[in-house]
């Protein structure tokens, strides 16, 4: 009885947040702010993707930006081929290829003439790569910090490849000077409400998709794997398969976020696959609360929002990185479950205050959790 009740209220909260996000352009008519908030929402989506694999399956992916960046490059390649090459004017070749004395469009660029292919690739390439990487890591029963290191290393390899193969990727400068994202004649203006709605809509869909996965049987098994991997394996489940699944879904969401990022930022850069961004995602999720999809998303919005505000204020121009660092330390020390954990605590306190029936009904719920923890501590 309890669990569905909790699920309903959870869905209500998620829906309320999504609607609030979707309503923003109605009260806000500022090209700069819409663009900025759309950018933050993309980060929110990226945080959701990591929360899914880290918070729900215990896979700490330090290379989440790899799939994000690949999505971003797929979109940039498709949009690049749509530009009139104003800076070169040579046979439809992207400008940086002309600079690198490339005379013919490389074979893997050719399908990107179709935007639909670009969009599909932006999701499928990250998914395929994650599945392949996951196959080696999880079939080999690599766990914990070693899996985290492998994801980080894989990302650095992809980033180095992109920087090094500048004839095909634009190298260090990335892919710039892109066309607008256009579907059926409708152009999404990076500074208008259309792009904002696109990002917010995608975010809402991913949030609910992720929520659906965590509520499904698969989601429960994943959480069991997170808490006690061997026990799940002894029950006869193929642990690796479940892990590969969630790792790939997480990569697909990150790839989608990367594509939206290119639309909002109007370029793709190898820094999108960089270690700083990738570790930032971990921080957002940790601040927001990794075991809550919504918490992780809000964590990203709060951290990037505060970061933007601090670095823009004159008072903190010199010290904003220091202030950010201090805030992280405080959160980690005092809110180990992040902002979501803090909210839950406050909510629990409110629930407990009315005496009688309500208090009784909450009491037994907390007990099994407690005993569960004790077992975990023993084993």
């Amino acid at each position, binding site marked *: 009885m309890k669990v569905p009740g909790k699920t309903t209220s959870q869905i209500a909260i998620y829906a309320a947040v999504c609607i609030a996000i979707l309503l923003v352009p109605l009260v806000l008519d500022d090209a*700069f702010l819409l663009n900025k908030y759309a950018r933050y929402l993309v980060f929110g989506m990226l945080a959701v993707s990591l929360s899914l694999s880290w918070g729900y399956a215990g896979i700490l992916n330090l290379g989440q930006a790899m799939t994000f960046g690949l999505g971003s490059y797929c979109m940039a390649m498709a949009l690049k081929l749509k530009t009139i090459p104003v800076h070169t004017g040579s046979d439809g070749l992207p400008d940086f290829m002309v*600079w*690198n004395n490339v005379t013919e469009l490389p074979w893997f660029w050719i399908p990107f003439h179709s935007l639909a292919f670009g969009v599909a690739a932006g999701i499928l390439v990250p998914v395929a790569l994650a599945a392949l990487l996951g196959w080696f890591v999880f079939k080999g029963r690599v766990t914990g910090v070693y899996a985290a290191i492998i994801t980080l290393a894989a990302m650095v390899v992809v980033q180095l490849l992109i920087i090094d193969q500048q004839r095909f990727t634009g190298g260090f*400068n990335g892919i*710039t000077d892109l066309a607008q994202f256009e579907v059926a004649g409708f152009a999404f203006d990076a500074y208008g409400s259309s792009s904002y709605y696109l990002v917010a809509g995608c975010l809402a869909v991913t949030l609910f998709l992720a929520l659906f996965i965590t509520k499904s049987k698969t989601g429960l098994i994943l959480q069991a794997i997170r808490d006690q991997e061997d026990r799940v394996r002894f029950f006869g489940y193929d642990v690796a398969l479940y892990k590969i699944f969630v790792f790939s879904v997480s990569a697909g969401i990150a790839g989608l976020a990367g594509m939206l990022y290119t639309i909002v930022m109007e370029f793709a*850069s190898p820094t*999108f696959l960089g270690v700083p961004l990738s570790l930032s995602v971990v921080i957002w999720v940790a601040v927001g609360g990794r075991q809550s999809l919504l918490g992780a998303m809000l964590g990203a919005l709060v951290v990037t929002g505060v970061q*933007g505000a601090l670095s823009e204020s004159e008072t903190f*121009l010199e010290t904003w990185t220091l202030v950010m660092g201090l805030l992280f330390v405080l959160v980690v020390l005092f809110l180990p479950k992040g902002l979501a954990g803090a909210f839950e605590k406050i909510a629990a306190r409110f629930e407990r205050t009315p005496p009688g029936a309500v208090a009784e009904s909450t009491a037994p719920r907390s007990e099994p959790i407690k005993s569960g923890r004790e077992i975990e501590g023993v084993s």
Partner: protein
Amino acid sequence: MKNHRRSFLKGTAALGTMSLVGFPHIWSKNYSLARAADGEIKVGVLFSLTGTTAIIEESLNKATILAIEEINAAGGINGMQIVPVIEDPASDPATFAEKARKLVLSDKCVSVFGSYTSASRKAVLPVFEKQNNLYWYPTLYEGRECSKNVIYTGAVPNQQQDDFVPWLVEKFGKRWYLIGSNYIYPKEENNYCKKLLAELGAEVVAEEYVPLGHSEFSSVINKLKSEKPNVIFSTVVGDSVVALHRQYHAAGLDPQTMPMASLTTSENEVAAMGGAAAAGHFTSAPYFMVWDSPENHKFVDAYKKRWGADKVTHFVSEPSYFQVYLFKQAVAKLAESDIDPNTIREAVKGEGLVAPQGKIKVEPENLHTWLWPKIGQCKADGQFEILKQSADWLEPSPYKAYPNQLCTATGLQES
């Protein structure tokens, strides 16, 4: 007591009225159209104060601020003060793009002075082109860009190489070793260098690119020892410059017979590697700190006075400084109600002044700058000795290596 309260009330009322008058944009919807309001002109200053390129970009930020302060202290532009909005893009292209948007869309700056790396320029370019604003870029770069939204005050390949390469061939010989960091700037410089070398009948014995940030040059040093080129043409950037010079020095190679000729080694890099490792090598640039002119003495003195006696000026901080004065001259020609990025661009075309390096002017066709190339040899004290200055100022041609392309006021023309 009573008096105090009354004066407090008066003061509050006065403050209230003042803020109403002082911030009319809260009340007037057309504020966004009036770019210069209340005797103030807002400009953006976009150099990284944190992150990997912070050290060099901070010096550009300082040179820009110095010029703005000087202009304001001297009465501003037609009585209007320049108000700099300083942002820290943290050496990250995405943050560059975000901050550029803020400066252009939210702060409504009429121009933005900024950036060092090509990657960051490329990241902000769509913002300035789509919003039709103006970006002032002080860094030497690879050319091959033709944007009506950027004023380029740094050197392009022809301005650094046209005098330098023939001079080196005549003085040292025809066997050249090209080494650069692996990105677009060194490749373009080398494209142009090879063209010049071919005309001079010289030979490229090797062309090598190392990853950005590379610091292990022992294999390069070995190749240098076996190939024995006459000139090492270096477009290595950043920390790699320091590593290359130090390892060259440690290997006991001799700058007198096999000098490095660099387009990127300034007083700033020399300060990082130490004078001993840099001594004897050559750099071509339009500006060196030791250049003897009244304008330069004034600039160097003011810079040291404002930011510290140990600070150096170099060939990127000098354009950062004089481009603010170019901005001033352009804006001074305009009526207050006319000041916007479009009119500033039209006004700056052909505008010139005597900069620390000599008399410069903005080429109306491609918005690049006529400059005075110089050849300097580094000494052990970390400063350069200027051996040669070009006889005349040199035209900027960002497409010189590609004769069928020409950057004009209407855009890129192909023939």
